[in-house]
């Protein structure tokens, strides 16, 4: 009998079955439910369902990330409702403003996502924490309410797509460039309803911050989950949790739906052009395009390593006249670390702004959105029309290095020569 992929192993265990196959509908027990401000929306169906208490408050994590700090009285009120709900329900792992982060980054850095676990999040980029070897899928408000009520969720067992990567990433070429290349190959719905497993020598050699980038943007392939086998790199990253952690990966004879192979040797930086994450071109093809805004932020690429890469390029340089550079770290911890390491000073010395952590600009919510005629280079994950502000704004997605080089010259710039 054939073996199982990571997603199949997690879903079989979570649904109490000896084995599952793609297409099966299972009722999966949830090990961790995490939410951001969508909790305010989910309170409406949760109250309607009529269950007084959350099934297991110890399995719930809540933080505030989309609107931090709250830009309107109505949003401040939503935050109050969430705060009050967590208190009343005994949700101890509520990370309020000041201890907050973009929820996926917070889940990762606090060690809440563990290998083999079944995780549901209230946000489409929940896929990101699958880099810890967990099955992690995003859902909407009513599904979140259902999980709060009963601790499980129906899921269709996905086919698994394998993305095998070999070769060495070149100078100033990163996981962001690789995943853009992958999305260009599959299209922005190429992995719809599927789980994506990343494997191969290149993936094994990647540190956790880069593995998060790969899994994060499986959402832009339409995937239900993105996963990387848990190995020593994962164990080191999660060592602070003191949880017993073994390796967790697919069986050698696991059966995959589609399989894609990439050799990244010789691959240069990639840029997703307006207005689709699959509209990807090598940086050379768009070099010289004038930009108004450079935004380094989001769950995709605003970890401390990303900030260090940008700071290395920006040190001693000035942002081009007329360009607005904004750096918004992925969590409050990263924000503090960036201040302590002197990175914040580099950004401000270069003429950039450095803000506290929020999703705000990435989804066009607040704290730096785009005008109709503005062109932005962004380290984020999506560039559909209207994503970051006006539907007429143009957004290019790139790595932090490409972004920093671009901020200095005011036009899209290959970071390898910067």
């Amino acid at each position, binding site marked *: 009998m054939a073996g199982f992929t990571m997603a199949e192993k997690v879903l079989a265990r979570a649904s109490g079955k000896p084995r599952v196959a793609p297409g099966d509908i299972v009722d999966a027990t949830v090990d961790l439910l995490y939410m951001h401000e*969508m909790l305010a929306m989910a309170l409406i*169906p949760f109250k309607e*369902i009529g269950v007084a208490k959350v099934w297991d408050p110890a399995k719930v994590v809540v933080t505030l990330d989309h609107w931090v700090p709250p830009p309107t009285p*109505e949003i401040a009120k939503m935050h109050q409702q969430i705060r009050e709900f967590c208190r009343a329900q005994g949700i101890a792992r509520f990370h309020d403003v000041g201890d907050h982060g973009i929820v996926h980054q917070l889940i990762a850095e606090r060690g809440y996502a563990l290998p083999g676990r079944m995780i549901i999040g209230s946000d489409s980029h929940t896929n990101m924490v699958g880099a810890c070897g967990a099955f992690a899928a995003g859902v*909407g408000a009513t599904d979140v309410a259902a999980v709060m009520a*009963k601790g499980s969720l129906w899921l269709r067992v996905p086919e698994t797509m394998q993305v095998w990567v070999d070769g060495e990433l070149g100078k100033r070429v990163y996981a962001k460039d690789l995943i853009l290349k992958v999305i260009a190959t599959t299209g922005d719905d190429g992995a*719809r309803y599927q789980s994506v497993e990343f494997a191969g020598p290149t993936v094994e050699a990647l540190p956790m911050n880069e593995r998060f980038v790969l899994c994060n943007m499986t959402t832009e392939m339409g995937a239900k989950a993105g996963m990387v086998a848990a190995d020593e790199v994962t164990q080191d990253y999660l060592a602070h949790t003191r949880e017993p952690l073994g390796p967790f990966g697919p069986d050698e004879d696991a059966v995959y739906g589609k399989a894609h192979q990439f050799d990244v040797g010789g691959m240069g930086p990639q840029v997703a052009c307006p207005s689709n994450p699959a509209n990807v071109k090598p940086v050379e093809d768009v070099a010289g395009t004038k930009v108004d805004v450079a935004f380094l932020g989001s769950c995709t690429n605003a970890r401390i390593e990303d900030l260090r890469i940008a700071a290395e390029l920006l040190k001693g340089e000035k942002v081009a006249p007329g360009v607005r550079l904004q750096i918004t770290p992925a969590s409050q911890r990263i924000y503090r670390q960036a201040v302590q390491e002197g990175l914040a000073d580099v950004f401000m010395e270069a003429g950039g702004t450095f803000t506290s952590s929020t999703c705000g600009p990435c989804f066009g919510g607040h704290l730096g959105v785009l005008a109709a005629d503005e062109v932005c280079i962004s380290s984020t994950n999506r560039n559909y*029309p*209207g994503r970051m502000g006006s*539907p007429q704004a143009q957004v290019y997605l790139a790595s932090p290095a490409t972004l920093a080089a671009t901020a200095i010259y005011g036009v899209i710039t290959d970071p390898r020569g910067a």
Partner: protein
Amino acid sequence: MQTRFRGRAWVFGEDISTDHIIAGKYLGTTDPKVFAEHCLEAVDPTFAKQARPGDLIVAGPNFGCGSSREQAPIAIKHLGISAILAPSFARIFFRNAINLALPVLECPGIEKAVKPGEEVELDLAAGDVRTPSGVLRFRPLPPNVLEILEAGGLVAKLKKELTAKASS
């Protein structure tokens, strides 16, 4: 459950994202009226004003891609749109719509078969949709998904299950 829907079609292209359907700047509320007022504004600013209860949406592949925001199908449902037909849907949007008892049906070729404003007739039980250029079949919904629709949405289904459990 209503299984036959007849109405005027609004036709949209491929990759209509949740950012198109309801932009991030309108999400700072839980009021469905606000979502409805700005529904699909980035694609067709007249849509929210001119859509009538009973109208249907026809679109290209990957409808509802992007974020998990349930405000997107809430906006569409609040306008009274009776169903959405597209060759494919993004997975979270599909779940969210079904949970709200908004029928979303995978119907290959539909976006080429219908012109804006044309009448279409959808028969959930028969599994087909009549358009001026012919009859198309859509993929049958899995039984568990159909159960949610028949119950009137996931909340109604869970309430029913809880009541049954309490009285057994």
